[in-house]
């Protein structure tokens, strides 16, 4: 019992003592990367739908491209994290 309590105390000390476990730049990079993955996933579905609609000739290619890249704005917003 005693040794367990000591362990916990030691761990808390260790966490309080060191700096953040991940640097600011790395965290920003992580955020942008995740945003890009999310945007990519969203574009997958939209792209498929746009190709379908284009094949039926029901929308113009311009609109299709515009709709496809809409989620890309998320990645641009995520770039803000680089500058704070």
């Amino acid at each position, binding site marked *: 019992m005693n040794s367990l309590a000591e362990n916990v105390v030691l761990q808390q000390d260790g966490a309080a003592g060191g700096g953040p476990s991940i640097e600011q730049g790395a965290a920003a990079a992580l955020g942008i990367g995740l945003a890009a993955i999310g945007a990519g996933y969203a574009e997958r*579905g939209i792209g498929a*739908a746009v*190709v*379908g609609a284009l094949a*039926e000739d029901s929308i113009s290619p311009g609109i299709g491209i515009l709709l496809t890249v809409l989620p890309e704005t998320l990645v641009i917003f995520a770039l803000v994290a680089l500058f704070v």
Partner: protein
Amino acid sequence: MSAGASNPEYVNARVRSRRATLFADEDYRKLIRMGPSEIARFMEETEYEREINELGTRFSGVDLIEYALNRNLAKHFDDLLEWSNGRLYDLIARYLRKFDVWNIKVIIRGIYTDSDPEEIRTDLIRAGELDERTIDRLVEVDEIDDVIELLDGSIFGEPLASATEAFEETGALIPLENALDRAFYENLLADLGRPYEGPEANYVEFLEAEIDFRNARNALRLARSGADLDPASYYIEGGVLFSESELSRLVGDYDALVDHIAENGRYGDRLSDALSRLREADSLIQFEHALDAALLEYADTLSSIYPTSVSAVLSYILAKEREVENIRAIARGREVGLSEDEIEEELVIL
């Protein structure tokens, strides 16, 4: 093919755009005033253009319209199967197999009556899952046993094989046709389970409704005709409206049957108009059309609740079928000289 990931987005985009080209209710009102050749001319200016042109040299009048409709339907439904992958393919194919059932029935009947393969071919609707080659081989076959052999391995092979005995005994086609229908409906809900929410739950609910309405229709017909047939042998499992014993009990009593449908929470409200009409006017056709319209409306609601799922495809399939049925009804009605009001009663208009 059913391999690969499901692609509902792509199929949905295409289906919704095709849905927009279907005839509107005003078009039907216009068509009602036309004769068969005028209808054909009208269709030539719509998306039936290609079919009308292809068949125009061989057929004329109502036949031309009918074959063009069938061919167009087959084209669109084949496309659906071609576009879809994975799970989506599986769900669509389940429903479209009813055209396989139709085709096999036509072929078996053709062989039974020694019809010319060419004649059989014109009556086929090649919209199901069976590929062109199999169907072509089926048409050329001379014996019903060979048909069953060729279908070995598909979902129809085994049920047909076990029905041959009854067929050889009686010499009537009914055991074979019942086996086909049964195989279709049993496969409809097979290994879907009973999911509780999400698009798939609604898909199951829809298929159950299809089975329920089929049961209701059969029961009403039996109750109406007073024929001395065992209702249990026409019962299809999987629905929620009737159990087998309930159905057998209700067939004898027409009013109780209608009451039973009205009391059901799922359908009672939706069909209240149709049911009251059924009580008063005694028109079974009206009721069947009301059922169709209710089913169609229901599928439409589903497709707006779950935009990228199988629901939109399903509602397109139903809407297309309705269009084909309606145009055929108008053309046939004009041919035999029904009045405009009479034809309008035959249509399913929302």
